[in-house]
């Protein structure tokens, strides 16, 4: 027995704790249950204490972390639910199925809170596309997301894709889903009422995804390849039926509790629902509809077969539930009952094969480690500007920057996603944020999913503040007030002191920013152990932020709209370019100080922009981010199909002005006649703007700095580099 605890991923101390809690040795089944439930993926044992730093409460929060998904009040009794989750390890091994089932899992989380899924987003990180394997990964992951999400009829509306060597051995695939419901219809995952029935609905249970949660909580090694049975196989058609059947069943008062069967399948869904309701559950695995014969009890318990949900149903009402699932050609089978003894009891054809306290499974030991500053951080901020020769040809530099896969248009990717189904997508992919109207109401929601591993690597706390600030900026530029966050923390092994430090300070940074912007974190997921033989990934928290637009007239996008409109810059230049795409692409450095971010100035600027937009004074709005002002202007010009004639004055180095990723900065276009009104509003917020130039009919992209024209290119050339950079790799 002493050896077998290692096989299920437990430590000796953890095993001893189990002995103490049970008062006896666990049998093989029970040990396997602990193995998956006490994994980082299910139990958050290394991260839970740190996550307490995050603000989770707020006047709009209807449901916070701990449920299948968070929920926010968007007024008029409407609730938006959301959650982001990682599927990194399965995607690294089997990119198509890994990504597809990542979508499936997160959609069921939304479904489990009683909401109809209205949007999918995703955040993807790979190694560089110049390498064939990375192209394979991107193509397969995108196809997996597309085939699964498209079939479900849920639009995939936004996301981000990054390419960096840091993710070469361990890609990141984070999937986010957003749902809509009425506040009073939100469902919770409680197994209430002893005697009530426990039903499994949806797909059959097979041997796929065996111990996926434990697998996700270990480093990826060469041997991981042999672990393919830990990767689940998806069937989007069954998931679509499950969605439709569940939406119908939720009208029915006989359903008391709902839980998605994701990581650790039946055991996690039963122990979590029982533990929350202070009850127990007894099930007979013989009753579970199976795909194959001869499955061992522990295999049935921890299988991560997809497209299944657990329902807690009023005693005697099983047939009514079954009738609805039958209509959709799905199973709904009673596998046991809620009990009052707090135990998870597993029977096999009536004979008891295992019994453990539900609370013991759901309360793994929590670890807190010392915070030790990594050595790499000692000199990483040192950057000698003399090592950075100033470019002599800015035309060349901007074309290289637009051709950079991190900056270039992601159209090749989002064209493969149905982003229009459900008829709500007002602002489609390719702008700062996606905007979805709420049918029948004069309001809309804006969504973004964003991260910046390089920034967080250079400065975990400040970098993470910037990640939230930048995501909120995307929403504000779309006319939305940010109201809540869901986060996915992708890090290396927390057992390494350097990584634990990154994790601690990153969460602290996220907390600082979320507190400042009043955007509580309502849900999330932690993906640790993203390490390979090449080392750990950059610490990469990705944040999904929800924004509310209270009048459809306030919806704004990045496109320049009319010739002769004036272009203005709002915000101040930073002299720091550490972590920027420019420094990395042109000078090949990953170091330096991050551009300064002052959270008060940021919030002030965001509020000023919102007020300008709400007064109907702008035609377009776009925040400055990757690639700086030059890229910002190019994106608005290319997507709007207009030229520009712009001139910038500053005593800072030209390349830093143009390509520095200055924080709290926006570019707007507006009619000249509105200039005074805009200035008036900015004054109220102690914010200034400067006139840059005009949008032109002539399809030429012109930028002068301090009176010297240093960029003059045909829009067609700019457009070619920006639009075709990724597609030409395939």
């Amino acid at each position: 027995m002493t050896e077998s605890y290692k096989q299920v991923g437990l430590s000796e101390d953890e095993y001893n704790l189990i002995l103490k809690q049970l008062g006896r040795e666990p049998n093989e089944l029970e040990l396997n249950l602990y193995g998956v439930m006490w994994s980082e993926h299910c139990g958050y044992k290394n991260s839970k204490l740190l996550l307490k730093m995050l603000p989770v409460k707020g006047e709009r929060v209807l449901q916070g972390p701990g449920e299948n998904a968070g929920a926010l009040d968007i007024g008029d009794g409407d609730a938006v639910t959301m959650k982001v989750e990682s599927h990194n390890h399965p995607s690294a091994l089997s990119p198509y199925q890994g990504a597809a089932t990542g979508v499936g899992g997160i959609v069921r989380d939304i479904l489990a809170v009683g909401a109809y899924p209205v949007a999918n987003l995703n955040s993807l990180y790979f190694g560089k596309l110049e390498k064939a394997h990375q192209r394979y990964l991107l193509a397969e992951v995108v196809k997996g997301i597309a085939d699964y999400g498209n079939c479900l009829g849920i639009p995939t509306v936004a996301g981000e894709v990054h390419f960096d060597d840091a993710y070469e051995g361990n890609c990141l695939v984070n999937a986010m889903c957003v749902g809509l419901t009425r506040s009073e219809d939100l469902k919770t995952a409680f197994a209430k009422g002893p005697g009530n029935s426990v039903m499994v609905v949806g797909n059959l249970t097979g041997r796929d995804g065996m111990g996926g949660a434990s697998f996700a909580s270990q480093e990826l090694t060469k041997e991981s390849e042999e672990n393919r049975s830990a990767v689940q196989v998806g069937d989007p058609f069954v998931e679509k039926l499950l969605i439709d059947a569940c939406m119908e069943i939720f009208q029915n008062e006989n359903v008391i509790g709902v839980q998605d069967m994701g990581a650790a399948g039946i055991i996690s869904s039963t122990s979590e629902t029982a533990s929350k309701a202070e009850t127990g559950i007894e099930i007979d695995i013989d009753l579970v509809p199976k795909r194959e014969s001869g499955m061992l009890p522990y295999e049935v318990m921890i299988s991560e077969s997809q497209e299944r949900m657990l329902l807690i149903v009023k005693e005697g009402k099983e047939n009514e539930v079954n009738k609805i699932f039958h209509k959709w050609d799905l199973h709904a089978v009673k596998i046991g009952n809620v009990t009052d003894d707090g135990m998870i009891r597993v029977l096999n054809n009536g004979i008891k094969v295992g019994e453990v306290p539900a609370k013991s499974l759901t309360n793994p030991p929590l670890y807190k480690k010392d915070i030790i500053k990594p050595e790499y951080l000692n000199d990483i901020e040192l950057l000698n500007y003399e090592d950075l020769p100033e470019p002599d040809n800015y035309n060349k530099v901007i074309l290289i920057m637009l051709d950079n896969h991190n900056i270039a248009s992601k159209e090749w990717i989002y064209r493969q996603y149905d982003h229009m189904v459900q008829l709500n997508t007002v602002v489609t992919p390719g702008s700062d944020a996606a905007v979805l109207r709420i049918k029948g109401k004069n309001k809309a929601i804006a969504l973004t999913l964003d991260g910046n591993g390089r920034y967080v690597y250079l400065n975990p706390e400040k970098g993470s503040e910037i990640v939230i600030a930048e995501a909120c900026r995307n929403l504000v530029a779309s006319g939305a007030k940010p109201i809540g966050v869901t986060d996915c923390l992708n890090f290396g092994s927390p057992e390494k002191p350097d990584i634990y430090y990154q994790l601690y300070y990153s969460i602290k940074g996220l907390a600082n920013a979320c507190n400042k912007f009043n955007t509580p974190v309502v849900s999330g997921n932690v993906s640790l152990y993203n390490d390979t033989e090449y080392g750990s990934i950059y610490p990469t928290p990705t944040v999904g932020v929800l924004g509310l637009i209270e009048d459809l007239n306030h919806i704004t996008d990045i496109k320049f709209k009319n010739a002769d409109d004036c272009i203005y810059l709002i915000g101040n230049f930073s002299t720091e370019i550490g972590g920027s795409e420019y420094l990395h692409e042109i000078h090949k450095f990953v170091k330096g100080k991050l551009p300064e971010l002052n959270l008060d100035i940021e919030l002030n600027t965001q509020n000023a922009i919102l007020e300008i937009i709400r007064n109907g004074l702008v035609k377009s709005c776009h925040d400055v981010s990757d690639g700086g002002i030059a890229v910002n202007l190019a994106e608005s010009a290319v997507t709007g199909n207009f030229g520009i004639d712009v001139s910038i004055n500053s005593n800072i180095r030209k390349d830093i002005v143009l390509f520095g990723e200055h924080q709290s900065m926006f570019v707007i276009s507006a009619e000249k006649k509105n200039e005074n009104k805009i200035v008036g509003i900015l004054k109220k917020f102690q914010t200034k703007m400067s006139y840059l130039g005009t949008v032109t009919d002539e399809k030429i992209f012109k930028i002068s700095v301090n009176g010297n024209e240093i960029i003059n290119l045909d829009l067609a050339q700019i457009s070619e580099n920006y639009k075709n950079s990724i597609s030409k790799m395939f």
Partner: protein
Amino acid sequence: MKFGVIIFPASNCAEDCYYVLSSLLNQNTKYFWHKSSEAIDTDVVILPGGFSFGDYLRCGAIARFSPVMERVIEFAGKGGLVIGICNGFQILTESGLLPGTLMKNTCLKFICSPQYLKVENNYSVFSKKYNSGDVINCPIAHNEGNYFADENTINKLEKNNQILFRYCDENGNVNDSTNPNGSVNNIAGIINIKGNVLGLMPHPERSSEKILLCDDGIKLFKSIIEFYN
């Protein structure tokens, strides 16, 4: 006027069609379930887009065996108006209500994008509100939209003015560079010889409101309503 929208399992655009007809056009609209064998008692029936039966085997190949399809064929035979959008078009070709077939896009990828179409003529009940030669924007979202039929069939379609919509650019140019999926002669939508059955890959319901792209597509539904009255 009464409209029906058929729901096959995973017909994920059924609600979108229902919304446009009932909420935007105030038409009396109802759903038909794929297992139903009740007669179609509406004036028009729509086979919506989506992934009926997961598109397993071949798009539309399983849906054509649904009990409701016998009723749709009967309804079409009596002159009832039938529209198949995207997956609905695929089901119509599978069930023989329209000629030809829809193969995988030549790029072998799903394409979701705004798309310009040229309205070939306005003789049809489905295109009366357009002018011949109009260029409209009507998004596409499909994996298998590459229309193919043998030469003889294509010639007949051309001769009988059965080709209602072709893929083009914003200036109405119809050629290989404006063909998103490889369809023969840039065919995006066709009608049967009697003129009461329309199949098209683009989604008119997705361009039925100014707030979403544009409202070029709604004229297709308005054409029917106006003709009927």
